[in-house]
């Protein structure tokens, strides 16, 4: 949806983008310092915690590494706060538009007022967003629109919206896609890619956070898409057996501990029709990185409000898919890229 930010919010978000860009050249500097200290993927220990200790000792006096850490720390906390302040500055204009979009239809939202969120989700401030995904009544707009369009899209490598559509090219050909269930639909970014790729498909989006689902509702209504949006956990959707040709998620699994990931694969299998497909796109498994790359991913996750990233990135998701019952399981990234990492399978006929 199109919207304008007023001066303070606009300038504040723009400054964070400039700061991230200014800090980017620090990475090759500290990487070079690490190499000069004799630390490389080949010399790092296998144990991840020992790897952290080795790198931090080697870079203890590095201005470049410390400044990159400082800017990252500042940005990881402040981008959400700056975006919430930007929303408040323009709320008199934005809030009525949001309410009108919610009421317009044709999408519908099924709230679960008695839902007890899973323990791994409750109390976690994912991405270090103050209060977590339910930390602001308009978090769906603030995170899904304001932060993604004014910060993430300008600082994250590549086209984050095109990436969401690109993973669907990895689906097996020739199978019908009439009914789609998206697990962890959030504010609807991937849901948009699904609907544009399969214009005739009926889409059900499952998500724990009500503020996020409200934003997905607005996105659907603005585009005239009749999405069914259900407030539920991905591993316990409450939806009927075998109702979908495709069960899919984008960047959900790394927000879950290993046993919840396995439960999501099992729920996906239950939801799939015989012959139906599953596709889960997520972060790069640590085994695909070299030891330095895996350390860096783990370092960013530790500082970035991602308490389950390591568990998820070290779980063999393809094996979890097979254990759930899927066959013809494949994994890899679009065009051979390591990100996003896509695991695909088929439910036997």
């Amino acid at each position, binding site marked *: 949806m199109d919207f*304008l930010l*007023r*001066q*303070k919010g*606009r300038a504040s978000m*723009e*400054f964070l983008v*400039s*700061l991230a*860009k*200014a*800090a980017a050249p*620090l990475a090759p*500097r500290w990487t070079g310092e690490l190499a000069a200290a004799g630390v490389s993927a080949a010399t790092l220990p296998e144990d991840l915690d020992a790897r952290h200790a080795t790198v931090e000792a080697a870079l*203890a*006096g*590095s*201005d*470049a590494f*410390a*400044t*990159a*850490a*400082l*800017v*990252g*720390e500042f940005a990881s*906390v402040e981008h959400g706060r700056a975006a919430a302040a930007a929303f408040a*500055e323009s709320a008199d204009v934005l809030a009525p538009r949001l309410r009108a979009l919610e009421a317009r239809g044709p999408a519908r939202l099924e709230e679960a007022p008695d839902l007890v969120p899973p323990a*791994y989700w409750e*109390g*976690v*401030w*994912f*991405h*270090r967003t103050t209060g*977590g995904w339910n930390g602001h009544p308009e978090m769906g707009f603030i995170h899904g629109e304001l932060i993604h369009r004014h910060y993430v899209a300008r600082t994250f490598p590549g086209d984050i919206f095109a990436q969401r559509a690109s993973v669907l090219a990895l689906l097996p050909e020739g199978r019908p896609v009439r009914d789609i269930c998206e697990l962890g639909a959030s504010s609807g970014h991937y849901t948009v890619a699904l609907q544009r790729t399969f214009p005739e498909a009926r889409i059900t989006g499952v998500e724990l956070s009500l503020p996020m689902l409200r934003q997905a509702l607005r996105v659907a209504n603005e585009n005239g898409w009749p999405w069914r949006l259900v407030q539920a956990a991905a591993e316990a959707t409450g939806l009927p057996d075998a109702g979908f040709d495709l069960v899919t998620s984008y960047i959900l699994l790394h927000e879950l*501990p290993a046993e919840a990931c396995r439960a999501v694969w099992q729920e996906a299998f239950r939801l799939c029709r015989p012959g139906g497909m599953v596709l889960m796109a997520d972060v790069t498994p640590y085994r695909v990185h070299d030891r330095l790359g895996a350390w860096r991913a*783990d370092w960013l*996750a*530790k*500082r970035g*409000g*991602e*308490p*389950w*990233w*390591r*568990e998820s990135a070290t779980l063999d998701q393809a094996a979890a898919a097979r254990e759930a019952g899927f066959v013809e399981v494949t994994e890899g990234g679009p065009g051979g890229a390591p990100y996003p990492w896509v695991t695909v399978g088929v439910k036997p006929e």
Partner: protein
Amino acid sequence: MTRDSADPGAASRAATSSPALHPGQLDHLGKAVLLLARELWVTRDRLAILEAVLEARGIPVAEAIRDFQPEGALAERLAAERDALARALVATLAPENPA
């Protein structure tokens, strides 16, 4: 990150994670703060004078500034100056050739 902690989400709520700067950067940090203070004062001074000049000519500007959307050459100029300020901050904290 692992199940060792009784509250795995605690780090996500923390005001800050493990310290980023090392003690040798304190002087750099002081210089960065002074640089920011100078830039902030220049801007405050200019804004106050700008608003006073315009008000003296009968032009109310507060709402117009709030809602103004920079485009074209102005947007490009602002982006270039903003990027330069951010680079100056980073360069002050992590100088290529520390004095």
